[in-house]
């Protein structure tokens, strides 16, 4: 018999706030986290802004722990893991630690350190390279540091699928709860802003404002949008067996109902909108919950102000929900956070879980001037409404798409 998996803790380190309460307050009040970049010099660059977590301070986020060895990616995710553990009110002891696993979605996290490591060796010879940094040049240490710092030992792993990473992490993480290998899994994703993650999007002109003369702005589904704005985040939720959660009196934010994914190879090389993969993923996820599209109340959209992704998503939503689309409460929270790539679905899951728990749906900002081709309803101020189900949607520029259905738990 398949166990029910619920979310009992939300650990979120984001440009709109660190910690569940700050995150939720700023999100529902429509406050943008997009601001001038401080992590590197942008004076020679056409794009100047990102969803950077400027207030992040690793020693403050991880008191009493040695954080100097960790790169920013590891710091963000460890801070998020701690917030998740604290939010779930988990007592870490000899009994609980072996029953807690770690599954983190990340794709580009090691790029900055690998690049610095290699460049320092190119300039100064291999003797100039830092042994402590060597560990940070590889992706697995992101999850590894969570295990080392918190002593949780059921398993640790990273999983990479670009924008879907957090979703795959949550789904695969949940499978370890269902199989009984773990009572709880710290699952989610992380991505940090760096010169490298910036360049990988800036040089091909994917970022808003990267073409000279263009305005730099973030308006999902917006008219005249010209690209997305980079973001960063660490988003770690605590997945827990339902009976185990009830047994210890845990707060349950939402239930992880079902997951759907699809890969459309035509979309891989195409620069045109592609809605097939997301349509299939959402349809499959909804069906696996034993639900129909009419049962879905809220869509946490992945739209990020990119020309192709937003159009693809709008079309997919219409495909799946038809006329029901106009009844959906849709939020594009990347309007406030920017695009945190591997962390994005994790951030969306945090927001959607809060929406289900609080009965408040966060807005989309900068949505006054709409692209008529993106025919989906949006709202610019939070809505108070009790909802029962939400779907988190993700599209990757690589042709992958994923969707996760979350349900309210009374």
């Amino acid at each position: 018999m398949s166990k029910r998996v619920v979310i009992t803790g939300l650990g979120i380190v984001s440009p709109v706030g660190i910690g569940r309460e700050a995150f939720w307050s700023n999100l529902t009040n429509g406050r943008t986290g997009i601001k001038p970049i401080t992590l590197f010099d942008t004076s020679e660059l056409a794009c100047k802004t990102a969803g950077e977590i400027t207030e992040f301070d690793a020693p403050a986020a991880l008191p009493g722990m040695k954080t100097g060895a960790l790169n920013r990616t590891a710091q963000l995710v460890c801070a998020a893991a701690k917030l998740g553990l604290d939010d779930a009110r988990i007592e870490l002891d000899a009994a609980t630690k072996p029953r807690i696993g770690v599954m983190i979605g990340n794709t580009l996290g090691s790029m900055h350190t690998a690049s610095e490591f290699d460049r320092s060796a190119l300039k100064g010879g291999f003797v100039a390279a830092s042994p402590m940094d060597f560990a940070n040049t590889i992706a697995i240490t992101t999850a590894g540091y969570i295990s080392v710092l918190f002593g949780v030992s059921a398993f640790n792993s990273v999983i990479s699928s670009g924008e879907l990473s957090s979703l795959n992490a949550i789904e695969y993480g949940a499978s370890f709860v269902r199989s009984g290998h773990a009572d709880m899994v710290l699952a989610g994703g992380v991505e940090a802003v760096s010169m490298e993650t910036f360049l990988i999007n800036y040089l091909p002109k994917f970022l808003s404002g990267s073409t000279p003369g263009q305005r730099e702005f973030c308006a999902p589904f917006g008219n005249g949008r010209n690209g997305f704005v980079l973001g960063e985040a660490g988003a770690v939720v605590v997945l827990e067996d339902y009976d185990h959660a009830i047994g210890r009196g845990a707060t349950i934010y939402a239930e992880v109902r079902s997951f759907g994914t699809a890969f459309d190879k035509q979309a891989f090389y195409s620069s045109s909108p592609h809605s097939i993969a997301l349509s299939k993923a959402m349809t499959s996820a909804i069906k696996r919950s034993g639900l129909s599209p009419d049962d879905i109340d809220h869509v946490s959209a992945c739209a990020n102000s990119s020309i192709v992704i937003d159009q693809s998503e709008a079309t997919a939503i219409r495909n799946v929900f038809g006329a029901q689309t106009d009844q959906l409460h849709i939020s594009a929270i990347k309007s406030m956070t920017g695009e945190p790539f591997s962390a994005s679905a994790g951030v969306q899951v945090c927001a959607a879980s809060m929406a289900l728990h609080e009965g408040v749906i966060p807005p989309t900002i900068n949505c006054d001037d709409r692209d008529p081709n993106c025919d989906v309803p949006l709202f610019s101020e939070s809505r108070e409404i009790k909802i029962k189900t939400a779907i988190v949607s993700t599209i990757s520029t690589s042709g992958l798409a994923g969707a996760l259905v979350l349900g309210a738990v009374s």
Partner: protein
Amino acid sequence: MPERRVVITGIGVVSAIGIGKNAFWQGLIAGKSGISDVDAFDTSEFPCRRGGQVRDFVPSQHLSADAIDRLAPVAQFAVAAAKMAVEDSRLNGNMEPERTSVAMGTTNGEASVIEKICSVWVQEGYEQIDPKLLKQYPMHLIPAHVAMEFGAEGPVVMMPNACSAGNWAIGFGSNLIRSDEADVVLAGGCETLARGAFIGFNRSFAMAPEMCQPFDKNRKGLMPGEGAAVLVLESLDQAQRRGAHIYAEVAGFGVSCDTYHITGPDPTGRGAVDATISALKTSGLKPEDIDYVSAHGTGTKPNDRVETLATKKVFGDLAKRIPMSSIKSMIGHSFGAASAIEAAACALIIENGMIPPTINYREPDPECDLDYVANEAREHKVDALLSNAYAFGGNCAVLALRAMR
């Protein structure tokens, strides 16, 4: 409903001792060394510069001209290995797209791409970076290329768990089949030699200068390698229905982790012990059922000592009677490809009833006193085995394979 069972019906390998399943197997049994002076990039500044470089890979034998142009080196290895595996499975394209998935393992993906990016950045400035390189870098694109080759539309993931990534990819794929999400999963690992590995391991004195000598008293460290392996994982039902050749069953997958240190293993072997016990538990196998262990066996002082200790903790007196050899003695440590290549070897070991040796074994270490199948392959019927993989971050993953006869 009983959980579905997972079997291996196809094998594809790119290795330093042979390209393709047959050449690879012949090399294993012959105790062939694939170690040479690495010339994939300039190694002149490194004290230790030997490794398991793949030398016989001819891209045009496996890939179209278009693919060779578009795909960076790790993706080329991955797609080539996948093609060989699928051909070996004789699925003949009978893969239902939505029920076919791809799961690969690596360390960081395209190491040579980031290195080229860095070279240009340092010498000419970042504005000169070729956009094609940036498009090739994100590692999740590698399994996507494999998916495109075969029209797979199910989950497509990369697991960058480095030294245990192959086992994790196979574990992920097995889970999809068991939970009825997929009927076929192309699962494996892929890696190319990286300057970063040479810099890091040389700098931390963890690399051997001449040869890889797992469990030997005078072992000096690991030797970086490269390659790829892909297994066709299939549901037992489907495999039997189509009369597929079955190498072995993926009986179980055990995971745990040390929490001791970000790079070094827990000296008590706790994570390795727990992962082994988990592998036995998930497969329903008992210690006395195990006929062979494919060691992680990197040839570093800590790993081999801890792995031996962990084996004794799990198996007790039985440990001395279970042969345990390290394929890394022949091909080096191919990191993200390693445990996938070793899983391929394990499937062939069950099929052929022969165990490959640990080569370069000259002097026993009192701390490593098990049967490491020194220097020569041995005939040995293997009905059940374990394959160990331990990575940075204390990550431990053990695969259990069982014969289906």
